[in-house]
């Protein structure tokens, strides 16, 4: 494989991991925009979603649903259903955490909320580890061999095409939700100025609930897609995802969902492409360096407004 096609190959992987980072970053950015705090538990909410999907998957496999894989994908109906249900369930978990914890801390300084979220992160991760143990769990044990595309000899798995398409659909869906629906507009208004939104009659508590649901559902979607790509999930997976996600949010502009999409793609692409030049073990460092540089030269991020 020559150098050009190698770069294009890595860019292809970058789009796949960028899609996953994007889905995680949107949720983090939304909660920051509305609740004004950096939610360190977001990565572990992702992991929780991934394991909820595992529960549903095992359940459906036992229910004797038609489980033959959707050709040419490596999985079938049970995983698709588990994927949808885990988004709903993770949204529920997020609301539960909010009413049990964050709601009581509403109006306190953002550093208090941040520390509380670190606590939530630890609790979630350790509960997952307690139940499932630290070793990888597999959604599907069947390995999918990647296919060669006619251009440049690039390789891609059918599952990866699925990941890109699903992520794109979710992002488009979110765009219409934010711009066309009443709740979406209310969310943007609350994000701009919560007090002003309150006096103009927006039920901000309801907006906060919706923010948690959407952010966490997208995070869960990202986690399951990552699980489909990697073939396995671990309890610590969410924590490992947190750095690239934060980098994406900061790069795109904190609080801006569109910035998160852009940031996610840039981080995904640059991390993967970097491996053509530096040792693969340094891949996570790339996201970190981009984050630091961005904070130094343009702390508001690419699309940050405030």
């Amino acid at each position: 494989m020559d150098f050009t096609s190698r770069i294009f190959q890595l860019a292809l992987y970058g789009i796949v991991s960028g899609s996953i980072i994007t889905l995680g970053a949107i949720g983090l950015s939304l909660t920051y925009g509305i609740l004004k705090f950096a939610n360190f538990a977001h990565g572990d909410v992702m992991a929780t979603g991934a394991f909820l999907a595992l529960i549903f998957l095992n359940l459906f496999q036992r229910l004797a649903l038609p489980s033959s894989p959707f050709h040419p994908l490596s999985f079938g109906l049970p995983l698709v259903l588990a994927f949808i249900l885990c988004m709903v369930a993770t949204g529920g978990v997020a609301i539960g955490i909010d009413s049990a914890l964050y709601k009581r801390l509403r109006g306190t300084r953002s550093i208090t909320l941040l520390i509380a979220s670190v606590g939530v992160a630890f609790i979630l991760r350790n509960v997952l580890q307690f139940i499932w143990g630290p070793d990888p769990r597999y959604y599907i044990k069947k390995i999918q061999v990647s296919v060669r595309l006619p251009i440049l000899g690039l390789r891609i798995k059918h599952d990866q095409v699925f990941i890109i398409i699903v992520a794109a659909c979710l992002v488009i869906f979110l765009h219409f939700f934010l711009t066309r629906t009443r709740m979406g507009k209310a969310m943007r208004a609350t994000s701009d100025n919560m007090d002003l939104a309150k006096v103009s009659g927006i039920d901000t508590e309801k907006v906060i609930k919706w923010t948690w649901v959407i952010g966490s559902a997208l995070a869960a979607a990202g986690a399951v897609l990552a699980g489909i790509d990697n073939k396995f999930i671990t309890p610590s997976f969410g924590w490992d995802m947190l750095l690239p996600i934060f980098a994406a949010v900061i790069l795109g502009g904190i609080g801006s969902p569109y910035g998160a999409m852009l940031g996610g793609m840039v981080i995904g692409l640059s991390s993967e492409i970097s491996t053509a030049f530096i040792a693969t073990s340094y891949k996570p460092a790339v996201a970190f360096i981009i984050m630091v540089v961005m904070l130094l030269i343009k702390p508001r991020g690419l699309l940050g407004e405030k």
Partner: protein
Amino acid sequence: MKKVIVFILTVIFLLSLTITGGAQEPIKIGALFALTGGLAPFGPPIVSGAKLAVEQVNKAGGILGRRLELVIRDTATAPAVGLDAASKLIHLDRVVAIIGALSSGVTFASSSVTIPARIVLISPASTSPMLTDLEDDDFVFRTVLSDAFQGVVQGKLALDLGYKTASVIYVNNPYGKGLAEVFKNEFEAGGGQVLAMVPYEENKPSYRGEVEKAIVGAPAAINLIAYPVDGNKVLVQAVELGYEGTYIFSDGMKGEDVAGGPAADYIVGTLGTAPGPMEVEVAEAFEKDYNEAFGPTTVPYNDTCYDALALIALAIKRVGPSFLDMTQEQQGTAIRDNLRAVANPPGEIVTYNEFARAFKLLEEGKDINYEGVSGPIIFDEHGDTIAGAIEIWQNFEGRARTVRIVEVRAE
């Protein structure tokens, strides 16, 4: 009222003194094993080997009138955690010797507390050639062969199978690096060509980059020197990336976790190497007793682990009753000074589950020579065992089965 409470507390205190004084404190031996982390599938079956030895020693009446007790602590397959666990075994649990750890990197780290504390550390599984030259004041031993032997057998195996080219993907720690280098030397000395030496870091979500580097030039085989958890990820990605060559595996990849793992269909018939077991008569009896107590396993090193514990028990017995009055440091030193006497010739040969006879011989002041279930166990001046065997195993029907045993002995 206050006086009454003070009185009662005093009585309880005195009672507790007499109780601990009356009951015989067991002699504690530490076990430093990976119960979580990359080697988690290996830890429990291996430590069961030591449990079996402890049980048999106690059945033979214990040592010096005391029961033997095994204190197990988890290393999480991480050097820092292992070091901390070793320190706790010595200072909190007050053990007189430690068996472990599994990974050479963890053994290295742990030795940095066991050596200054004058506590013997016997590893049943750390195979890195780099352990041989450790500055250890003679406190670090192992009952497993150094990878200097395994790497040579791997290299010869690759040549015998007619491979002209190979790449190595190895875990970036003393075990992986040591084995990879010996393999490379042997394979290239025999005319083979190593296309790439690719180290990998543990616990990464993806090893695509590493696999891509290793499959450049389509090597006939990839020598995968890894632990099961990450090794499975590497295998999955190699298949996904369309690698069509075969594999050679190290001892870390032996077992159901890999043979029956996610890449099971793609590695049927592939070969690997692992230290031991030698063709030892007592191995059968050991396997039978082990299976009865803990169920069958194909994980290696439960036999070397048994032998490590047996040797410590015999060494303590050889020190004699004065052992009980020593400080922890003196006990450690005494065990060190008696290990070779019970392990090496000359002396009357004692073997598996012969503790009662061995203890009696020692009481009579006779020399003994323990020949274990994993081999004769002869410690050289580095604390390495010099005689043993390398087995060649094959993945078959979701399990690893032994194909051939190659006996080796250092000069």
